[in-house]
């Protein structure tokens, strides 16, 4: 059978379940079905032949869990299990010229940052399986039962980088149509289509009548053939075994409706048998595949949601960009990802739809930092991100590990730019912002800019990148250097939209550079651009004027139904009741845990006092008082932490002011980490906040940190104190090893430990220098060890 010629001419049928069939033949619960390719080949072969006889066009190999992670402890290699599986299927398929799909299921582990599986380790494991499958003669790669878009991405990349076979991908959703990691169907489709799979769809989870409910949303955003492989209904336990509640006839009737709705490829998953496939084929075989209409949607996605361009104007938050931001620059140089993550969440709270991420600084390794920034930010927000860099290496690394279909900033009309950026967009997927400039500079006229836009679109087409994945930016220059600049930009915008039919975007704030009260110009220019048909704008979500302009336009243009968003925007927020900054001192605000009051108070005090004085006269005394009460048992953890959070907010204001003068706070460096194998970090995070409040410079290595990384950081940063946490007995061994390595590499460095499972005796046994029994313990130890006051430092002193 030739897939490419049959697809679209007639319906294509997959086979049904293998695992549940094998269970019916004696496979035990928890036993690996794939191993039966080697131990019970006839059983596997018989099942393949039965499905073939029932009318299946494609046989899935018995290799669902045949990856190095699942097979690790089995004593069998991926290569032998996959080869056997593919040969058995091919042998059966040959009879009728059916095709063999190499079945790749999930690793069974959760990806970082949720679990401990590294993205590249997943890619590598899938690559090994895919290569083995192609080598043994599979015709297609089927990636199925994926409940995490990130793992799915790893598998698709692995298949495409290591084989030249067609790639099919199906995901599993719950009753609400969501993947287990929170993704919805449109975001899964955006990701998979952009990665270039040949067909996609749903499998497992439930039966066809439940899966049918999601077909409309799937069909509405998908422009490639759709695969539907449901279970034989829902499983339930009946006298010790699992049974499924839909009959073969019912299954067939349900699948018929799904075929008539437009699915091109149909089969079965758990609980189905050759009888189900036979009934389905009989019922459906004369149905003609419904023609697929291209959807031409300009869409970006995160792990959980999509943002569509062209319907309502999209706000791209611009704050994560070091230009003109000394505090952010400082945070990037220090590797303080927390600062970026907080900035991301706060822009989200202010109404941004997409977040720009730019870490371009000459002082740092942009590739490493941009990747870490993207990973960190996508772990705390579901907003899609705009990967903003002029470094192709940084761009590729970030696009590769981005969990979704990114917005990419940018490509321009220069040959070199297009030749580097387009291949990345083609391979990793994305919507790319196209700047209308080229080797001749920025055209002075609207016609000139439209011509560059056309050039870029035509070149993109040669790479297989469609117009829908290009957003044109007709460039905003400040009117302070050219009175006509705004008009040219807007005329170009109009021309590009009318003539080229693409979405558009602009960096609004540039228009007012060099002029006073910039927000007025920004807001008005924004409105003018929106009226001209602007689809997206890079803005500052903290700017009240700009955001007001956005919501007002929404209401006036009729896009905001019943002005509801406008009204909501102006209705004020519910916030915790706090006293006004005038009525209490900073120390009191901290002591009582009033974060917003502490923040305001710090700002106020900076008008008349220097940061170090504020720290020593107000903040430290308040923290000491809270700490002492905690140790004495009259104050408890929740209150201690509210004080810590208030102090942190005040401290951030002070740091901001100091960064503006090129200064920073120095109180001694401390490395903190949760050890290898451990993913719980609330304790470490609490200690971090407290230590930072006392001015210590905390290098937080995160969780699941190998001993080598702790040592490397401690050595390169000349660190005298390391803090380790571990929650469980199984990870205390990692702690012991880490301590050993640290003491060996840095004899003068002390190690303090904490965590639920530890006791003073155990800490001594593993040669820790100090056992911290509660949140304040580590602060006291650090203070004693360093015994210097917080001081001010200017880098270079």
């Amino acid at each position: 059978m030739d897939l490419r010629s049959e697809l679209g001419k007639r319906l294509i049928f997959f086979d049904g379940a293998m695992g549940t069939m094998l269970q019916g033949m004696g496979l035990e619960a928890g036993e690996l079905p794939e191993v039966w390719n080697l131990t019970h080949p006839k059983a596997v072969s018989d099942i393949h032949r039965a499905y073939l006889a029932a009318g299946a066009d494609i046989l899935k190999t018995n290799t669902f869990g045949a990856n190095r992670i699942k097979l690790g402890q089995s004593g069998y290699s991926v290569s032998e299990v996959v080869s056997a599986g593919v040969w058995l299927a091919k042998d059966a398929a040959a009879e009728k010229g059916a095709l063999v799909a190499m079945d790749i299921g999930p690793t069974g582990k959760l990806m970082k940052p949720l679990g401990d599986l590294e993205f590249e380790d997943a890619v590598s494991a899938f690559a090994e399986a895919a290569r083995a499958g192609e080598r043994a003669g599979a015709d297609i790669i089927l990636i199925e039962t994926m409940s995490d878009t990130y793992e799915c991405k790893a598998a698709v990349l692995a298949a495409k980088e290591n084989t030249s076979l067609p790639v099919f991908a199906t995901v599993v959703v719950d009753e609400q149509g969501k993947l287990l990691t929170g993704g919805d169907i449109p975001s899964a489709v955006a990701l998979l289509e952009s990665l270039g799979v040949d067909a996609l769809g749903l499998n497992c989870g439930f039966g066809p009548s439940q899966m049918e409910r999601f077909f409309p949303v799937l069909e509405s955003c998908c422009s490639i053939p759709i695969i539907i492989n449901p279970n034989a209904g829902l499983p339930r336990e009946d006298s010790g075994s699992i049974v499924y509640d839909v009959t073969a006839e019912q299954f067939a009737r349900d699948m018929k409706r799904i075929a008539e709705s437009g699915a091109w490829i149909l089969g079965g998953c758990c609980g189905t048998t050759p009888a189900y496939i036979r009934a389905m084929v009989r019922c459906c075989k004369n149905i003609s595949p419904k023609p697929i209409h291209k959807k031409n949607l300009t869409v970006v996605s995160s792990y959980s949601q999509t943002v569509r361009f062209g319907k309502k104007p999209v706000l791209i938050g611009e704050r994560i960009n070091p230009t003109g931001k000394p505090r952010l620059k400082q945070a990037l140089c220090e590797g303080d990802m927390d600062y970026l993550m907080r900035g991301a969440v706060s822009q989200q709270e202010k109404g941004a739809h997409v977040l720009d991420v730019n870490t371009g600084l000459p002082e740092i390794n942009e590739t490493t930092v941009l990747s870490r920034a993207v990973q960190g930010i996508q772990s705390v927000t579901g907003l899609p991100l705009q990967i903003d860099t002029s470094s192709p290496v940084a761009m590729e690394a970030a696009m590769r590990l981005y969990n979704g279909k990114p917005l990419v900033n940018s490509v321009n009309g220069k040959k070199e730019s297009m030749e580097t950026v387009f291949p990345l967009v083609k391979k990793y997927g994305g919507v790319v912002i196209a700047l209308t400039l080229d080797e001749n500079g920025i055209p002075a006229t609207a016609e000139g800019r439209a011509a560059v836009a056309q050039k870029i679109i035509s070149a993109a087409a040669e790479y297989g990148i469609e117009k829908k994945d290009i957003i044109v930016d007709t460039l905003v220059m400040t009117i302070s250097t050219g009175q006509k600049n705004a008009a040219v930009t807007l005329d170009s915008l109009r021309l590009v939209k009318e003539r080229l039919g693409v979405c558009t975007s602009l960096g609004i704030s540039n228009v007012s550079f060099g002029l006073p009260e910039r927000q007025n110009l920004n807001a008005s220019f924004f409105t003018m651009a929106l009226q001209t048909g602007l689809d997206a704008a890079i803005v500052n979500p903290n700017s009240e004027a700009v955001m007001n302009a956005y919501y007002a336009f929404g209401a006036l243009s009729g896009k905001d139904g019943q002005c509801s968003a406008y009204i909501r925007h102006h209705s004020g927020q519910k916030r915790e009741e706090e006293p006004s900054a005038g009525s209490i001192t900073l120390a009191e605000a901290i002591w009582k845990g009033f974060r917003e009051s502490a923040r305001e108070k710090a700002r106020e005090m900076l008008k008349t006092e220097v940061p170090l004085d504020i720290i020593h006269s107000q903040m430290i005394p308040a923290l000491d008082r809270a700490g002492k009460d905690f140790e004495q048992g009259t104050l408890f953890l929740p209150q201690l932490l509210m004080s810590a959070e208030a102090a942190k907010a005040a401290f951030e204001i002070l740091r901001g002011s100091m960064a503006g003068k090129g200064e920073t706070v120095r109180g001694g460096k401390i490395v903190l980490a949760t050890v290898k194998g451990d993913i719980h970090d609330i304790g470490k995070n609490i200690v971090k906040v407290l230590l930072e409040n006392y001015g210590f410079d905390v290098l937080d290595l995160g969780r699941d940190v190998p001993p080598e990384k702790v040592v490397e950081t401690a050595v390169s940063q000349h660190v005298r104190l390391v803090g380790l946490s571990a929650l469980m007995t199984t990870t205390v061994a990692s702690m012991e090893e880490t301590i050993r390595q640290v003491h060996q590499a840095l004899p003068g460095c002390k190690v303090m430990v904490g965590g639920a499972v530890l006791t003073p005796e155990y800490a001594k046994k593993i040669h820790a220098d100090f056992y911290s029994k509660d949140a304040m313990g580590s602060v006291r130890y650090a203070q004693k060890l360093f015994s210097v006051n917080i001081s001010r430092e200017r880098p270079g002193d």
Partner: protein
Amino acid sequence: MLEKEVLRYLGCPEQSADSRLKTRISDSLQDLRKACTPRSVWRCFPLEMGTGSVQIGTLEIPGNSLRKHLRGCGQAVLFAATLGAQADFLLERMSRMDIGLAAVYQASAAALVERYCDECEQKIAEKASRKNLFLRPRYSPGYGDFPIECQRGILAVLDCPRRIGLSMTERYMLVPTKSVTAVIGLTRDRPDGTVSKCARCDSPACPFRKEPNDGSAE
């Protein structure tokens, strides 16, 4: 009721909890309930006592604590439940934004998963009572000398990754983190009144150990 559990996990006595903290707790519970879809899976297996171990279906579990706990049981339910990945996303976000809220959310999530397990146990109990069987309190890997390494077997037998998206790390930690796996013994013997599960556990160093005079009966 749930608030009390949350305060216990936070290490804060009830009388020291002011209205701000109580509001934070109730807001966090509401937030978590909205964001999370708890899931569970369980199956019943025959039970056989070995010397120094227990056999539940095909799983052999070494150690004496579980063995002692299941004395008099002819069957056992292998049970797994999780609040899901959304809880972890929320906690991760809170950790960066507000450490005070993060601690409250942690404690609330822990209380919610235990409450969810209680509700699931109710359902199992109803089904068991129709066969005149009673439930022993759930007993998880990590209690007593029930090895944490047994997580692997329980997750595999129940097909947890596929059924409820529950998996584990290299070092046997459940992920998503707000999850529970347990063995629930089924016995013909009537339960012996309200003895707290902590009193029966051999881990005296556990910081969450409930004292018998806590007032919260099982």
